[in-house]
């Protein structure tokens, strides 16, 4: 038998760790005599160039300085107007010369500089000369920062059966609605961790809850095939139940605020009975029913450009006109059930006129204008019209990226833009980050995966869960992601690095629903252990 080397002594371990620490701390400042590079900034979401190309001394080209430069190009000279940016440099053949969205690109971290990235990209160490224009794509980051949630601020009992759905109010992190297997939905006051209202009326499990974008109505869909509307302030039923479906409700989607006829919000509900019904939330009547799917409709999303997207177990995704309910496109590339859909504009459509500033316009018209402006900013494209991209998650373990919808008619949107392959089991949930840069997918193979929002390229696998991941939710600033799993934990991930930022054990059984509040102040989760948990930073 070979001789065993004795374990290192304490002194050896100390010196090794000191050395490692010392080596880590070595600053990687670029040498001073690097010369200059020519940089062309390009808006990453629309592809439009920002200003003319500029000559930048390479030794000074840190992320911070580049952000200052872009801000001044965009005319934001004052310190309080500046926006943080993320920068992306293309790698591979052609260096940074071509700028179409399909090349591989690497993001610059907050402490990075351009020199390090370029040196890493060009293997021989040959840097581009001043003649060559480097295209640096810019993506504005949220001006606010959401704290990592790290502790359970409240664990509230109340529901008598597992919690099946949870959603925060778009207005604030103070109100959370949950639907449960005990036939009730509840509204919680998250500041104090107390129950506010119990919404009784359904005769079976409440499977879906959805706040209207202006936060004045709450819709619940149930296993008893009805949809009910509630006043979340008083906790009372608004009118009678909306009857029409013959099987349980799978998901709900409100008409975007800017697209509503004033005073006549509409609601779409998808059901196991293969139909989607669009309801007039004031008159409590069916506006029209979308019948065309051959299997259970698993998800419905209402886009901001007048389109309804539905995913079904009949392997298709259908796109409908929200005005009269006619079928616009059928997207059939999936080989198995389509489980979930996500829109690049989901976050703004959900929050309408509520933003991080907390300023809510007074009049209805101002609110509509603000909601429209926010939507158009999120859906901006190079063609000048708002566009949406759609991603569909399926049991065939892949996702398809569709769109952009709303662009000029010449583009064929029934062909998928990309197929997102990598999961090893069915994908249950998919989400777009609020800034549209990333897609997160949660699968039954215990992994969450991150993808580029524009091209669908694979970014990272977030490993850590030991059970199927049921849901995932981005923070409002798109920097963090929280995922809920069958293994009873929530985990918080950093999107930029793909590292786990926090593990949130506490639930005693599988976690079915998770939501990050629209203002980023808290995370709410519920599951089979019948407790609602509020997590804060």
């Amino acid at each position, binding site marked *: 038998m070979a001789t065993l080397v004795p374990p290192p002594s304490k002194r050896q371990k100390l010196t090794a760790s000191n050395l490692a620490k010392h080596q880590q701390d070595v600053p990687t400042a670029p040498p001073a005599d690097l010369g200059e590079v020519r940089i062309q900034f390009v808006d990453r979401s629309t592809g439009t160039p920002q200003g003319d190309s500029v000559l930048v001394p390479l030794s000074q080209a840190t992320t911070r300085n580049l952000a200052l430069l872009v801000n001044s190009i965009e005319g934001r000279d004052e310190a309080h107007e500046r926006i943080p940016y993320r920068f992306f440099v293309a790698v591979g053949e052609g260096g940074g010369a071509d700028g179409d969205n399909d090349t591989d690109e690497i993001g610059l971290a907050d402490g990075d500089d351009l020199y390090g990235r370029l040196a890493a990209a060009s293997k021989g160490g040959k840097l581009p000369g001043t003649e060559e224009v480097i295209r640096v794509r810019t993506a504005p980051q949220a001006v606010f920062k959401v704290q990592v949630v790290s502790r359970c601020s409240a664990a509230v009992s109340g529901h008598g059966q597992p919690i*099946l759905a949870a959603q925060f109010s778009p207005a604030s992190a103070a109100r959370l609605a949950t639907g449960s297997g005990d036939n009730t939905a509840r509204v919680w006051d998250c500041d104090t961790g107390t129950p506010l209202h119990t919404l009784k009326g359904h005769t079976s499990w409440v499977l879906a809850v959805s706040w209207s974008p202006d936060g004045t109505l709450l819709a619940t869909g149930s296993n008893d095939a009805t949809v009910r509307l509630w006043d979340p302030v008083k906790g009372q039923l608004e009118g009678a139940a909306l009857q029409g479906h013959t099987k349980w409700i799978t998901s709900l989607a409100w008409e975007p605020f800017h697209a509503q006829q004033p005073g006549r919000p509409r609601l779409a509900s998808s059901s196991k009975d293969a139909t989607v019904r669009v309801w007039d939330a004031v008159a409590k009547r069916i506006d029209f029913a979308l019948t065309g799917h051959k299997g259970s409709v*698993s998800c419905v999303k209402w886009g901001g450009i007048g389109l309804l997207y539905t995913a079904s177990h009949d392997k298709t995704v259908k796109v409908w006109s929200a005005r009269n309910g006619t079928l616009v496109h059928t997207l059939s590339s999936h080989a198995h059930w389509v*489980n979930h859909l996500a829109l690049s504009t989901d976050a703004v459509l959900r929050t309408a006129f509520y933003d991080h500033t907390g300023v809510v316009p007074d009049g209805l018209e101002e609110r509509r204008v603000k909601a429209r402006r926010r939507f158009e900013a999120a859906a901006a494209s190079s063609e000048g019209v708002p566009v949406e991209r759609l991603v569909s998650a399926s049991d065939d373990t892949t996702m398809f990226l569709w769109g952009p919808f709303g662009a000029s008619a010449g583009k064929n949107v029934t062909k998928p833009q990309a197929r997102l392959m990598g999961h090893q089991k069915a994908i249950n949930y998919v989400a777009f980050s609020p800034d549209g840069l990333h897609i997160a997918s949660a699968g039954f193979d215990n992994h969450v995966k991150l993808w580029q929002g524009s091209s669908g390229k694979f970014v990272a696998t977030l490993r850590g869960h030991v059970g199927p991941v049921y849901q995932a939710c981005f923070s409002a600033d798109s920097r963090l992601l929280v995922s809920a799993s069958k293994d009873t934990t929530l985990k918080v991930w950093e999107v930029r690095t793909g590292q786990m930022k926090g593990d949130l054990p506490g639930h005693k*059984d599988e976690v079915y629903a998770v939501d990050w509040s629209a203002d980023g102040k808290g995370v709410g989760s519920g599951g089979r252990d019948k407790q609602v948990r509020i997590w804060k930073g």
Partner: protein
Amino acid sequence: MPQNEYIERFQKQHGRRLDYEERKRKRLARESHKQSADAQNLRGLRAKMYQQKRHKEKIAMKKAIKAHEERDVKGSGAGDKDDGQPLPQYLMDRSDQTRAKALSSAIKNKRAEKAAKFQVPLPKVKGISEEEMFKVVKTGKKTSKKAWKRMITKPTFVGPDFTRRPVKYERFIRPMGLRYKKANVTHPELGVTVQLPIISVKKNPQSPMYTQLGVLTKGTIVEVNVSELGLVTAGGKVVWGRWAQVTNNPENDGCLNAVLLV
């Protein structure tokens, strides 16, 4: 390497006979001929035993066929799931709610009730004398004089990494034929039984020495590997060892039945 796996080792090193597959196929093909010949020609006790065996096989076969037929029926689920546990919509059409999950949640519910933490199903067992447990080995020239060598007459669990001591120093012999690796573990509330590998013997109520020797008698607490059931702790770690108590007399029955301690 465990001592008793020499055949497996040989096969790994040298492979099988070249005509192994063919012989196997042919034997299988002849099986029905052999069965009918046996059924017609056996007489007396052997005939009885043979019929008993066939009877059991036929029951198993019929059960298997029935299970297959049930699986092929379309459109189950939905209606009959209503009375079960509430599920979110994305799990409602999926039928892979496994038995293991039912086990896991029942265990968790039980734990929440905090009932009977230190109780075991069999609190008292009948004592076994040393004379019954051990047979004195007197073979050989030296041992016949000293007679300190013992053979354990009860079933035992021997860990996979056990190697025998030199024969000269070996005081206890645990016969190969009485060793067990797996136990049929029953969940007390759900009544489901799963065959699980044994990890270790935690306590033999007869004597601490029997615990050390890994003797499996009625009332013994064993640790079984439940990793395939997919249980998870509150912290999200996978549970893989769980205790169970032996409920039968394995030396009489030839199998090891145990009940899970929850």
